[in-house]
């Protein structure tokens, strides 16, 4: 029985991969301006919450610096930035979205500014386990030209009970974390981390990444353009 399962799984995986194939695009074609401008530092603004989950924003802002740093970027400390902007009277990203991006270069010396929108945060609970559906919209703007450098969004369903939807190494890590942390709210951090991993892996690598400037041909899932 087990022996049969393995080929079946392989076929399944292949089907999954080939399902993506027609929708793939090279990073250089998807985000040409990233390779022209080569931003080094990213200022992450507090996420904009479009969901009814009031706390989603709080969870999120704590998980964004890590994946961006792994992609090779200098990320300004989000908490400090938020606090400093409050001193200037800017409490919400909603009020900053119309500020010319150049201001962030002037004020913080940032090369690019990242707007994150949480579009979905739906939880469902079953008798054994449950899942969270997370939707994430990212937009990176140049603080030199104001142009959109990188833009990506994704929706991911992560199970918070037994199994993990994402699979792979991260799935395993999430599963361990989920098992380790018993409180229902704390489950959100691994959920946020997994959604970040999916979206942020599409950004061209930054200066501190060993493959910086060599990932032009890396294929990512094409997003539907409006």
């Amino acid at each position, binding site marked *: 029985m087990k022996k049969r399962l393995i080929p079946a799984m392989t076929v399944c995986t292949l089907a999954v*991969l080939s399902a993506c194939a027609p929708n793939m695009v090279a990073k250089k074609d998807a985000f040409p301006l990233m390779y022209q401008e080569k931003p080094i530092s990213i200022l992450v603004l507090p996420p904009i919450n479009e969901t009814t989950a009031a706390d989603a924003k709080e969870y999120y802002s704590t998980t964004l610096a890590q994946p961006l*740093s792994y992609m090779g970027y200098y990320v300004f400390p989000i908490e400090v930035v938020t606090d400093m902007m409050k001193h200037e009277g800017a409490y919400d990203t909603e009020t900053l979205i119309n500020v010319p991006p150049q201001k962030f270069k002037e004020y913080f010396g940032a090369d690019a500014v990242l707007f994150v929108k949480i579009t979905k945060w739906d939880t469902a609970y079953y008798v054994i386990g449950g899942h969270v559906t997370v939707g994430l919209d990212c937009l990176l703007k140049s603080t030199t030209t104001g142009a959109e450098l990188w833009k990506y969004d994704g929706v991911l369903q992560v199970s918070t009970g037994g199994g993990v939807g994402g699979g792979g190494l991260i799935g395993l890590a999430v599963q361990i974390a989920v098992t380790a942390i018993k409180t229902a709210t704390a489950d959100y951090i691994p959920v946020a981390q997994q959604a970040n991993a999916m979206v942020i892996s599409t950004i061209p690598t930054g200066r501190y990444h060993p493959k910086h400037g060599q990932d032009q041909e890396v294929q990512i899932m094409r997003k539907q353009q409006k």
Partner: protein
Amino acid sequence: MKRLGLLAVVGCALLSACATARPVPYNWGGYSSSLYSFKKDPTDEKLQAHKQVLIQIIQGSAEKSLKVPPGVCAEYGYILIREGNTAEGMKYLDLEAQTFPESKAFVERVKTQASQPTAEKEKTP
């Protein structure tokens, strides 16, 4: 059709799982969790716990000859300054600027703001 969408999502997750192995070997320790706890329950106890995580990241990285992750020294220094420990806080801000030269303008901005007498109390309750 829906199935196909789901497969695509799973496939994407699989692919991105491969792509997000950590090529820059930062040690972020328990950063997200302790910061999350503090934001959820902003007490001094939770702040001290987060500070502890920050200093562990800074010292732990040095022990393993790793670069301290971006923003961590600045965040630690900022909290120290907010607590009134300005001299020590400034040291960590300088360390941030040394580790990441692109943070210089930001660090200067933090320093200027920190040395300005603001309406806000130095210690947050």
